[in-house]
């Protein structure tokens, strides 16, 4: 049964490779990739159920007991993210079918997407810190290709920067790993946690922890987000959506895991640092969003704001805050995916990205416009949509922990989010229509399907927050009590 845990990683990889052989049968590629992602989503859901009811399960690869071998660990936190990521990927695929174009489809687009999600899922599931590095690389390499896929001038330019920054980030990861191994002499995350706890997270270990903080911050776009606006603006919309939804989240996941499980003991330094970084990130993100004159800039800086907001939850660190962070994480994955799909569609429909050059879209595409409006409200945190529960729980946590500055920054950022997204709505969706209803480009059905599905998900996450709470609470329980995780790995 434990072998199930590897499926969210291995199924996409194997089908991805098989699709390489089916390069020119596009229909087949579409069908297979969809089936794959649906299967993975279903598997993830089943696993989530199992984990929630029976506790953490782990898979020791090749049967080597921890801490010696590599293992996958499925706790509710990881599984929730795997499930969300898989579902969102499925939807983005659906969107891609009708928008991506034959040329890119025959260039192994679907395999790269599948490898990407494999890397993402692997990162969520792994219980071995070096394996996390490797999973990151699977994800990154795929993302490198996906940023550049299409070969446009700007794409290549931005992807080169993206790759180089990530190469340096990976280098820092290796440095951090070297120091980690040099000190605690083990790679298993639970074992690291145990050893770190044994010596009470001495100063040197805190230094190492801080190094990891930087590494994951680079991935998450926490403070070190310079790479993000450029590289998220250039790939095809479906890829943008996946990036905005998933890539930073992996970094956030790693941060949460690192500082709740492995290095939770010197919060004066680590969590303060995270808090400061999150605060600055939000402010910088807000300034970027305010400054934005085009959909991409506004969208990407909103990604940055989201990152900062979630990490307030981690910085605050109380149970409520972590719960909120998880809710918000799930919300942000879905909502950002939808936001970027919509942005991509706007650019496709108008051939413009500057908001003032588009106008009156809602007249020709009413449903499309209203879906944007929903995502706008959700990202602002308006109840009863998806962003709401996470936001109030993080707020509660911040109040409990008396982190009023973070509280103020976090909640004030909602206003900027609203303001910036509203600007798109008013300038591009509202206003005089320049194209008559008859002359408009139609929105492909598949794209509509993905919009609707994601919008419904957004509503569901908000209205049906209770149905997720059992999983989220289980996830939080593990995060707040590292011993649950450690015992599941090292005892038995």
């Amino acid at each position, binding site marked *: 049964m434990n072998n199930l845990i590897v499926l969210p990683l291995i199924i996409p990889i194997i089908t991805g490779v098989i699709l390489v052989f089916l390069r020119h049968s596009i229909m087949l590629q579409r069908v297979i990739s969809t089936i794959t992602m649906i299967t993975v989503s279903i598997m993830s859901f089943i696993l989530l159920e199992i984990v929630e009811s029976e506790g953490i399960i782990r898979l020791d690869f090749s049967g080597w007991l921890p801490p010696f071998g590599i293992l996958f660990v499925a706790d509710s936190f990881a599984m929730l993210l795997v499930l969300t990521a898989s579902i969102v990927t499925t939807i983005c695929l659906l969107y891609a079918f009708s928008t991506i174009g034959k040329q890119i489809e025959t260039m192994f687009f679907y395999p790269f997407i599948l490898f990407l999600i494999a890397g993402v899922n692997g990162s969520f599931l792994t219980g071995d810190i070096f394996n996390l590095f490797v999973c990151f690389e699977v994800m990154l*390499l795929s993302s490198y290709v996906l940023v550049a896929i299409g070969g446009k001038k700007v794409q290549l330019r931005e992807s080169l*920067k993206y790759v180089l920054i990530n190469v340096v980030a990976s280098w820092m990861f290796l440095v951090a790993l070297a120091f980690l191994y040099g000190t605690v002499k083990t790679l298993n995350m639970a074992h690291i946690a145990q050893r770190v706890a044994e010596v009470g997270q001495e100063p040197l270990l805190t230094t190492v922890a801080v190094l990891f903080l930087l590494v994951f911050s680079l991935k998450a776009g926490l403070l070190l987000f*310079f790479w993000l606006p450029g590289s998220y603006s250039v790939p095809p919309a479906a890829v943008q959506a996946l990036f905005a939804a998933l890539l930073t989240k992996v970094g956030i996941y790693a941060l949460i895991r690192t500082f709740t499980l492995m290095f939770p003991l010197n919060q004066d330094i680590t969590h303060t640092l995270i808090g400061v970084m999150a605060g600055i990130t939000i402010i910088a993100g807000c300034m970027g969003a*305010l400054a934005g004159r085009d959909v991409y800039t506004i969208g990407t800086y909103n990604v940055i704001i989201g990152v900062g907001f979630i990490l307030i939850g981690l910085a605050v660190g109380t149970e409520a805050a972590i719960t909120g962070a998880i809710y918000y994480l799930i919300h942000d994955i879905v909502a950002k995916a939808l936001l970027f799909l919509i942005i991509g569609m706007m*650019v496709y429909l108008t051939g413009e990205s500057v908001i003032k050059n588009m106008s009156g879209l809602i007249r020709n595409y009413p449903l499309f416009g209203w879906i944007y409006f929903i995502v706008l409200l959700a990202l602002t945190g308006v109840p009863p949509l998806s962003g709401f*529960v996470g936001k109030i729980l993080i707020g509660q946590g911040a109040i409990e922990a008396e982190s009023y500055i973070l509280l103020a920054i976090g909640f004030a950022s909602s206003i900027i989010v609203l303001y910036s997204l509203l600007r798109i709505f008013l300038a591009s969706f509202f206003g005089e229509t320049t194209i008559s209803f008859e002359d408009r480009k139609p929105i492909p059905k598949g794209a509509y399907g993905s919009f609707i599905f994601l919008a419904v998900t957004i509503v569901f996450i908000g209205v049906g927050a209770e149905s997720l*709470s059992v999983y989220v609470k289980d996830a939080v329980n593990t995060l707040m009590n590292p011993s649950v995780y450690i015992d599941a790995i090292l005892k038995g």
Partner: protein
Amino acid sequence: MTFELAIILLPFIVAACIPIFYRRLPKKAIGWVVLMVPLSLFLLLTTYIPRIAKGQTFSNYYEWIPSFNINFTTYLDGLSLIFSLLITGVGSLVILYSIFYLSKKESLHHFYCYLLLFMGAMLGVVFSDHLLVLYTFWELTSVSSFLLIAFWHHRKASRAGARKSMTITVSGGIAMLVGFLMLYSMSETFSIREIISNIDVISEQSLFIPALVLILLGAFTKSAQFPFHIWLPDAMEAPTPVSAYLHSATMVKAGIYLVARFTPIFGGEMIWFWAVTGVGLLTLFWGSFNAVKQVDLKALLAFSTVSQLGLIMSLLGLGSIAVYLGYSKDSIIYTQAAFAALFHLINHSTFKGALFMMVGIVDHEIGTRDIRRLGGLMPILPFTFTVALIGSLSMAGMPPFNGFLSKEMFFAATLKITQLDVFSIDTIGVLIPVVAWVASIFTFVYCLIIVGKTFFGKIKPDILEKNPHEAPIGMLISPFILIGLVVGIFIFPNLLGHYILQPAMAGIYPTFPSTEELTPHISAWHGFNMELWMTIGVVILGITLYFLLKRWKPIYRWIPQRLTLNSLYETVISFSENVSESLTKRYMNGNLTHYFSYIYMVFVIVVAGVFFLTNSFEWSLVNNSSVESFELILVFVVIFAAVAILFTTSRIASVLLNGVLGYSVAFFFVIFRAPDLALTQLVVESVTTALFLICFKFLPDLTPERTSKRVKVSNGVISILVGATVTIVGLAVVNYEKFETISTYFEDAYNLAGGKNIVNTILGDFRAFDTMLEVVVLFIAGLGVYTIIKLKAKKGDADIEN
């Protein structure tokens, strides 16, 4: 499901049905169908009146997110009932009015859908006992208001107004939410009633005052209190029925509702008293003062609404003193202010609703709302004139209209409060009646303006050309019902007082034992007291000022245009946009080199900072192995080769030197007993070098770095610091020997995994998963290279993105 829930849900359900079914209905029918909703709800709600008047309340509990204590608790008491009656009652009239007002060419389904959405949300606000649910509906009212203001979104002004109102009200809402969360953290409940019953515990806590301020921010923004009122005049871009409904009768009163609801919680605080009273009075004055200078009738009404809301707000502030004083024979008298607030709330809805509808008719029939272009309409629009006259006089506080009664009570309350000597009222409290009185004079003036400039005087010729005539009967029904109420309430005020206002007083003063004593007998005549003299003064001075308007109007120009709140708002927004833009562009300049500098600087500051801050540095050579001379030479070879790369100007040389480094590293691997590594490193290094050479076909040769000395030095410093950081941490780590490595386990490789090469068994068995994924990485890279090379953007593929 109970009736209360059904009441909230019905508008939403119908709203949801409209987009689905509107195509099947004749255009005209939508309005009539929609009208049934508020009408039936109103009737349903009236059935509650007797029971609530008896002191009954209705509460129901529905689970929403019980895990986080977020549940839907409906609570229907007197206070809620007043508002819900207003919402449904005025709602019915407004919809009836809209049916005739709006052209069939408009997208009516949107209009009614938003309107119903608003109605439901508003009912939700007043029916919610749960703070977060209240907040949910609260934001929903902002959203629906936004949509209604932007109903004619092809107009720039509509969009701007919508944005402004949404930004301000949602911001206030967010502040309020934080306040709610603080209340929750103090009381551990989201239920307003439970908070009230735990008030003793809560009021001592440090978050109490912040929560108070934040919640007031929500109320003030929503109710357009100074200085947040600036959104309301701009909201007049909405169709007039919307203005009548949302922006005078209902939504803007949500803030009033909130203050009334929270009076039992915060009422005892001085800051509450002064904030609510002070801001209310300031708003009252500022609104009336500014209304006078308006030339657009709707704008004038907007400022008048601001002013009247300030009045009600200040009354609630005055009433809160009773909570501070606690229940006693003497304190009861101060509750009259709150009573007056509720009374005026209703009165305002009646006359202001009527006035808005009047303006709508004028606009509809004459085609303009500009008083400079209006005049002498009395003979053309006699019925409309009647509405205007009655409405205005009531607003001005003249008998025999309901406004007179509440205005008198307002004066009485302001006078009464000056006798207290708490909260420093004894020193500056005298200002309260003064401001109230001055504001009332201006109120009187603008009421005269409404009637005088529109209906009296000479009729303008260009209006006559259009051959205007009186509005259709359908448009007149609603305003006439409202002015009927204006008169009716004047005649039977105590009916209202007993059945509607009295039970609501229980909501504001729940700790007071009997609502009976909180309900004064309202009478039109109460002798020549101070209040009446004040009123007489208002009339005399008001008429004087009206006729001398041209003389003193220039004082409005004393305030420079730049300093008005509106332009201040615009300046703040554009300033923050510009600052953000210039700041963001400065560091997000697309220059990779800069990004790297930032990243490295953060790296050094954070890592080295924490390292030294925590005193982690320790270094000894105890754990070190020996160094042979050849190793030392190798080290120097590596250093020289590396440093030489910095200075070389030939790409080949730099790649060759990198090759030297690679080979040297491989040799280090040999020295350090790593045969597999040495082999791999050798091959990989060679292949990498070959790849460099192959790619050089397409790449330019190195050019000397054209960077300034300053940049070079700073880059040098950063690099050295990065290297130093890695070194010092590395040295400390070398020295750290507290744990046994897990690797000893792998030394049993032959028995465990059947291999003698430990490294290989790790790669192929113990950590085979890494290897498997690494193979995938390699494969992705290979495929990626292929894709990047083969997939080239077509020439015609313009770079539309970015």
